[in-house]
């Protein structure tokens, strides 16, 4: 119950008190009090209302203490204040649903915050994910994450980042930032071979929950619909990605362990009418990555994969959002579709700074093409550049298997 209601309670408390520095602590105290008294006294008829009242009382207590100390605190800027002081002449407020939780989401994912801070703050304030879990997700010590979240909250007040919904012309751009922030939290849990993988994959799932919360407020928002589909497809493989603490490649995964319900939902989302029209480059890139993932998710075995279609989708992706990693993935697909020589040609001139992956793929394709000496040299290059223990061990094994 608490996790479901957390964001709404934070938003309501912020609307009333505008004190970002007090609200979260007060709500935390209220939840703690509930965990002590509810088991003994029974759960109240209106749990959210109980928590709200308890949290309010704590904020008021703090304000009273401060009033004695007579210190002035900076306040969060809210819609209400803006409407009093500043009628937004360019705003078309009639067409925008003003919702407390949406204001909270937009504040946490403001472009003036560093993306990683915005990600962490969204998980903390909107979803109530404990700081210790957020720290585990982003692979930093808990005190570091606590400090990062505190800094982000200070910056929101200090820089004048509003607790408000922007006018309709600016909203789509801001929702794109929300999508990017969310996807960052999602991908943080999937860094290969680092940390206790399965647990982090579970934490990644919080990003899916965040997207569902925002979609509840802005249904049919193309960037969020496409992002949810993409994340569901990737997340559906979580139980098959790791075996005995080792990463399992897509082709070798036990497909019966993929979550079929999530794949089905993602396919429905990808077919949604809101994705049929012209899309922003960001949304289009999510849709195309989602379609690629869906190609894998909807065939019964790795052998049946339609690599020709996947190459076509990568071609489109490279037009919308060119990146070296997309080119690399396309080269792998080309090799599967048309053979190692074609894949090697597609790799021509591709380099990713500080990454061993292009060399590792080149080595694999050279080995398939029977060019053992060249493959060995490419493996050496990849092993030298690889900084992940699990992956390096895999590469060393491949090199030895060349004989």
């Amino acid at each position: 119950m608490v996790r479901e209601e957390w964001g709404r309670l934070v938003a309501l408390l912020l609307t009333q008190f505008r004190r970002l520095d007090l609200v979260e602590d007060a709500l935390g105290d209220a939840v703690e009090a509930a965990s002590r008294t509810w088991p003994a006294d029974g759960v109240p008829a209106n749990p959210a209302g109980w928590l709200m009242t308890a949290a309010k009382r704590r904020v008021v207590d703090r304000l009273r203490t401060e009033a004695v100390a007579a210190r002035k605190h900076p306040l969060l800027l809210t819609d209400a204040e803006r409407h009093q002081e500043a009628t937004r002449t360019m705003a078309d407020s009639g067409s925008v649903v003003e919702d407390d939780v949406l204001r909270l989401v937009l504040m946490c994912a403001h472009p003036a915050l560093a993306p990683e801070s915005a990600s962490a703050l969204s998980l903390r304030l909107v979803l109530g994910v404990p700081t210790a879990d957020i720290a585990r997700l982003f692979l930093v010590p808990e005190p570091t994450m606590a400090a990062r979240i505190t800094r982000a909250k200070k910056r929101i007040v200090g820089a004048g980042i509003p607790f408000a919904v922007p006018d309709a012309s600016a909203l789509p751009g801001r929702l794109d930032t929300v999508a990017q922030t969310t996807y960052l939290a999602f991908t943080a849990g999937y860094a290969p071979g680092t940390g206790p993988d399965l647990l982090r994959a579970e934490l990644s799932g919080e990003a899916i929950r965040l997207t569902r919360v925002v979609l509840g407020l802005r249904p049919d928002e193309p960037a969020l619909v496409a992002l949810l589909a993409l994340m569901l497809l990737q997340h559906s493989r979580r139980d098959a990605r790791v075996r005995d603490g080792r990463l399992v490649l897509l082709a070798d995964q036990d497909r019966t362990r993929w979550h079929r319900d999530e794949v089905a939902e993602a396919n429905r989302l990808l077919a949604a009418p809101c994705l049929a029209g012209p899309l922003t480059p960001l949304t289009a890139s999510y849709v195309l990555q989602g379609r690629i993932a869906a190609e894998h998710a909807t065939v019964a075995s790795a052998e049946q994969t339609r690599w020709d279609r996947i190459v076509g989708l990568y071609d489109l992706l490279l037009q919308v959002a060119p990146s070296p990693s997309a080119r690399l993935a396309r080269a792998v697909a080309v090799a599967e579709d048309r053979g190692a020589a074609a894949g090697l040609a597609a790799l021509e001139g591709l380099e990713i700074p500080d990454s061993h992956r292009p060399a590792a793929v080149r080595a694999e394709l050279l080995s398939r093409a029977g060019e053992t000496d060249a493959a060995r040299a490419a493996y050496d290059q990849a092993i030298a550049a690889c900084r992940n223990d699990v992956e390096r061990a895999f590469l060393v094994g491949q090199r030895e298997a060349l004989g």
Partner: protein
Amino acid sequence: MKYLVLLIGDGAEKPWLEQTEAEQMAAMTKFGEFDAACAARDGVELLAGEALGDSSDATVMRTTGGQVQLTDGPYAEVIEGMGGFYLLEAPDLDVVVELLRLLPPYDIQIHPTVEVTP
């Protein structure tokens, strides 16, 4: 809130002295539009704004042990390239950014001021 807006570099805008007369006119028009938009917006007030002179005419003042020293440098790197500034009262950062989009595409630093209350 009050914001000090520093125009810290030419950014995507061609340097003033390399601009044709027509380009300079167009830039001036943008400054005029910015002034007008600030004046038209409730809750926004342009408190001050000036273009800066050549940085070679600037003076650095340092006080060491009660002795004032004046030199013509070294200047802080960012300030050396700074073309001008505004002091702006605005409800929040989003409003400031929305208004500043009317200016030529300079590199800009937006710095909130601190309200000192006795």
